C-alpha cells in the first residue's frame, strides 16, 4: 500500500509505508524523554525495553495522509502526557517536511518508564 504524493506533468511519486515508518522512528529519537520499545513476538517481549533502540512504528497510508501506531518508552520522571504530545507534534512536523504527507492520527502506546540512572535492567 503506497500513496501518490504528488502528480507532476513528468510523472508521479509514491512512498512506501516502510519509508514512512523509518522516518517516524528516526524522528522520535529526536524527542527528549522518548526511548525505544521491546520487540515483541506473539505478544511476548523478546528484548528488554531498551532506551537505546528506536521506538517501534507501524504506518498505514490512505490517500495523502498517514496513520501511525507507535510503541515507545518514556524516561522517568518526564511527564508521559507531555512527552507523547511532543512526540505527536514532532512526527507531524517531520513527516510533513520529509514526505509531504499529512498525519491523520497517531496512536501511542507507552511500553515502559525508564529511570534515567544509566543502569539497565536486563531480562535474564
Amino acid at each position, binding site marked *: 500500500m*503506497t500513496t501518490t*504524493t*504528488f502528480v*507532476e506533468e*513528468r*510523472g*508521479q*511519486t*509514491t*512512498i*512506501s509505508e*516502510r*519509508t514512512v515508518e*523509518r*522516518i517516524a522512528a*528516526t524522528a522520535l*529519537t529526536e524527542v527528549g524523554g522518548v526511548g525505544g520499545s521491546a520487540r515483541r513476538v506473539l505478544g511476548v517481549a523478546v528484548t528488554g525495553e531498551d532506551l537505546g533502540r*528506536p521506538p517501534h512504528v507501524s504506518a498505514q497510508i490512505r490517500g495523502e495522509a498517514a496513520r501511525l501506531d507507535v510503541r515507545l518508552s518514556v524516561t522517568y520522571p518526564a511527564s508521559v502526557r507531555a512527552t507523547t504530545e511532543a512526540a505527536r507534534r514532532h512526527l507531524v512536523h517531520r513527516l510533513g*517536511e*520529509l*514526505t*509531504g504527507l499529512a498525519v491523520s492520527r497517531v496512536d501511542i502506546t507507552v511500553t515502559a518508564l525508564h529511570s534515567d540512572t544509566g543502569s539497565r535492567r536486563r531480562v535474564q
Partner: protein
Amino acid sequence: MTGGVEIDVDRIAAAVLARPHVTGLHGGRFGEIATYLPGRRVHGVRIRFDEITVGVVGRYPATVREISDDVRTVVAALPGVGGRAVHVHVADLIIHTHGSAEGIKP
C-alpha cells in the same frame, strides 16, 4: 513486458544509482518494478511504452521530493526516454545515525 528497446535499462539503473540521495534500487513490494532482458532481470527499473518507473532506496535526511525530482531529472535526460512520464517509488530509506546504518542494504 517492455516497450522501447532503444532505451538502455542498465544505463538508467547506473545513472540513478550514481545520485547522492540514492543508496540502491528497489523492486517494490512485490518485485513488480523490474525489466526482464534475455537471461536476466534488472531490479528497480520498469519500462513501458509511455512511462518509466524507478524504485529507489533513499538516503535520509533527503526529502522524498528531493529524491524524486533528482531521479526524474536524470532519467528524463537519458537517450530514448523522450517524453515518457518518469514515476519514482521511494521504497525505503537508509538512516545513518552515529555511524551505523539501518535499513535494507542494497
